[in-house]
C-alpha cells in the first residue's frame, strides 16, 4: 500500500535526502560480469520509510549497502544530503557513516562481551563527547527502544527481540538522519518483529528519520511508506 506517491512528494517540494542516478554494480565471477544493480535511479525523501523487496540476488542488499556507505558502486552516483558517497575514500567514508547512518543487521551483531549500554555507547566513542554526555545519549536511546532497565545485561542475557532493540538503539544513538536495516526481523518471532517494526515506524513518523529496510516478509513491508521491488538489479515497481 502506498500512502504517499513520489509525485505528491515532489509536489510538496520536499528535498530528497537520497538522490541516486544510474547506479550500477558489477561483480566479476570468473570471466563473466554479473550486474547486481543495473542503472538504478531513485530519490528518497526525508522521513520516508522505504521497504526494499525482491528475491535473493535481486540487488536489494547491494543497493542498501551502497546507500549505507559500506559498498561502492561501479558506475553512477549516490548522493546522500549533498554528499556523493561513491566519491569518499575509506577514511572519509568511516566518518560519514558514523555521523549519517545507523545500521541494523539481521543477526543483531552486538559485541558479545559488552553490555547493552556499552554496545550502544560504541559509536559515540568516535564523536569526542565526554562521558556524561555519552551516558545521557545512550540512556535516551535505550529508553526509546524500551530497554532502559536492561543497560547492564550482556547480549546473551537478552532475548532476540531485545537484542535487536539494543541494536536499533545503537543505530540511532548518534542521531543520524538515515537508518538502514537489513532484514531486521529475519531472526525474530512474530511478537518481537512487531515491536521492532513499530519502533522503526515511530522513528520515521515521529523523529523524522529516513528508514530504509530490506525484507522478505510482506507483513513487515506493510509498515513502510513506500515499497520498492527489485528484480535482476532493476527497480520494477
Amino acid at each position, binding site marked *: 500500500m502506498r500512502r504517499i506517491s513520489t509525485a505528491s512528494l515532489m509536489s510538496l517540494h520536499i528535498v530528497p535526502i537520497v538522490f541516486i542516478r544510474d547506479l550500477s554494480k558489477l561483480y566479476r565471477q570468473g570471466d563473466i560480469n554479473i550486474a547486481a544493480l543495473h542503472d538504478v535511479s531513485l530519490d528518497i525523501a526525508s522521513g520516508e520509510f522505504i521497504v526494499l523487496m525482491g528475491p535473493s540476488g535481486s540487488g536489494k542488499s547491494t543497493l542498501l549497502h551502497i546507500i549505507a556507505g*559500506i559498498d561502492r558502486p561501479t558506475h553512477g552516483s549516490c548522493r546522500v544530503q549533498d554528499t556523493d558517497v561513491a566519491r569518499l575514500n575509506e577514511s572519509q567514508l568511516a566518518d560519514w557513516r558514523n555521523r549519517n547512518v545507523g545500521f541494523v543487521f539481521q543477526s543483531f551483531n552486538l559485541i558479545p562481551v559488552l553490555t547493552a549500554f556499552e554496545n550502544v555507547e560504541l559509536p559515540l566513542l568516535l564523536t569526542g563527547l565526554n562521558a556524561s554526555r555519552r551516558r545521557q545519549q545512550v540512556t535516551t536511546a535505550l529508553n526509546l527502544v524500551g530497554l532502559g532497565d536492561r543497560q547492564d545485561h550482556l547480549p546473551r542475557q537478552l532475548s532476540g527481540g531485545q537484542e535487536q532493540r539494543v541494536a536499533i538503539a545503537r543505530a540511532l544513538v548518534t542521531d543520524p538522519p538515515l537508518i538502514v536495516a537489513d532484514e531486521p526481523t529475519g531472526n525474530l518471532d512474530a511478537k518481537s518483529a512487531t515491536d521492532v517494526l513499530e519502533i522503526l515506524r515511530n522513528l520515521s513518523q515521529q523523529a523524522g528519520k529516513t528508514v530504509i529496510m530490506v525484507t522478505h516478509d510482506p507483513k513487515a513491508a506493510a509498515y513502510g511508506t513506500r515499497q520498492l521491488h527489485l528484480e535482476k538489479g532493476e527497480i520494477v515497481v
Partner: protein
Amino acid sequence: MPAVFTLLIDSFLAITALGIAAVFLTAFLSAVPVKYNLKSVYIRWRSTLATVVGIGLVVLVFVLLQSLAVGIEKSNASTGDPRNILIARKGATAESSSLVTRAQLRTLQYFEEIERNAEGDPVISADVLVLASLPRIGPSGEANVLLRGVTARGMELRPQVQLVAGRWFSPGRREIVVSRKLAGRFANFKVGDSFKTGPALLTVVGWLDGAGSAYDSECWMDADESRSLFEREMYSTFLVRPKNPEAATNLIRRIENDKRLQLRAESETGYYRKQTLTAAPIKWLAGFLALTMSIGAVFAAMNTMYAAVGARTREIGTLRVLGFHRRNVIVTFLLEGILLAMLGGALGCLISLKWNGYTTATLSIESFSETVFAFTITPVLVGQGMFFAAALGFWGTLLPAVRAARLPIISALKSL
C-alpha cells in the same frame, strides 16, 4: 660485535619503541574501544593464557640472565674506595698474577703524593694474593679461592670489609678470616675449623663480609705469614691512599711515566669496574636467548592473535559499519596484543624478583677464583623486561592487526 650489526639492532629497537609509543598515543588520543578488547580477551582464555605465560617465561629468562650479569658487574662496581690507588705489575690482568718487589715498595715510600698517617708512615698496603684450590661442600670438587695476605694498613684502606663472626687473625699465626658468603660453599670454613693448603694448616678464626663487593669472594690472612707459608719473595699489589685527588692524578702519571718501575696505577674502583670478562658471556647468552626465544614467542602470539581476529571478523565489520576507521581497528588490536604481552612481562618480572638477592657463584675469568655475587634485579632491568614484552606483543600482533583492518566490511553482514 660488528658495528653494522649493533646499528641494525639499535634501529630495530628504535622502530619498535616508536611503534609502541604510537599505539599508546593513538589509543589515548582517538577512539579505541579499549573496553571491548579487554573484555574480548576472556573469550579465548586458554590460548591467551598460554601466550601470556609463554611471554612471561621468555621475559623471566631474559631478566634472570641479565640479573646475573648485573650482579657480577655490581659486585665489581661496588668494590674499593675511590680515594685509593691500586698499583700492579704492568701487563698483569689480575691482582693474583701481579708481582711487585720490595725494592719497588721502598721507592714508593718516598713518593710525597702518598698520605702519611699519625706516625708519619706512608699509607701503603702491600698485599700478597695466593690462589688456593680447596674442596667445596658436597661432591662438587675443588675450586680456587683467593687468599689475600694483608696488613693492618690494608684493612684500614678497605673499610667495606667488616668482621661478622669470630675475631681477626693475629699477625705471625697461621690464622685466616674467610668470607661469610664463601663459608656456605666450601668445606671446613666454619669458625674454629682448619684446612690444609700446600704444606700449611690454616685455622679459620672469623668471618668477614664485604658488603656486596668483590671482597666477599676473598679470605684474609696476615701478609707476612702468607709470604712465608707460600714461599713468596715478592708482593702482589700495592694499595695506596694519596693525599688528595690532585695528588692521586699526579701519582698515577708519575708511576706510569717511570720506566724503571714497570708498574701500572689506577684508581681502585676503576680497576674493579673494568673486570667485565666474566659477565660478558652471560650477557651474550641472554641476548642470544632473547633473540631466538622471541622468534618463537612472536610466532605463537601471531597464531593467537590471528585466531582472535578470525573469530571476531563479524565484530570488526560491525565496528567498521559504525564508523570506526581502519587505523582504529589496527590500534585496537595492537593495544590488545601489547597489553597482554606486558601482562606476561609483568608476570615474568614478578617471578624473577623471587631470585633477587639470591647468592650464587662462578669462576671469575679475571681472578681465576670462585666469585660470589647475587642476582640483582634493578628497576632498569625490569624496565627492559617490560619493553621486551611490549616489543613481543607489538610484533606478534602487527600482521594480525593489519589483517583485521583489511577485512571487508561486508563480512559483518554475513550470518554464520
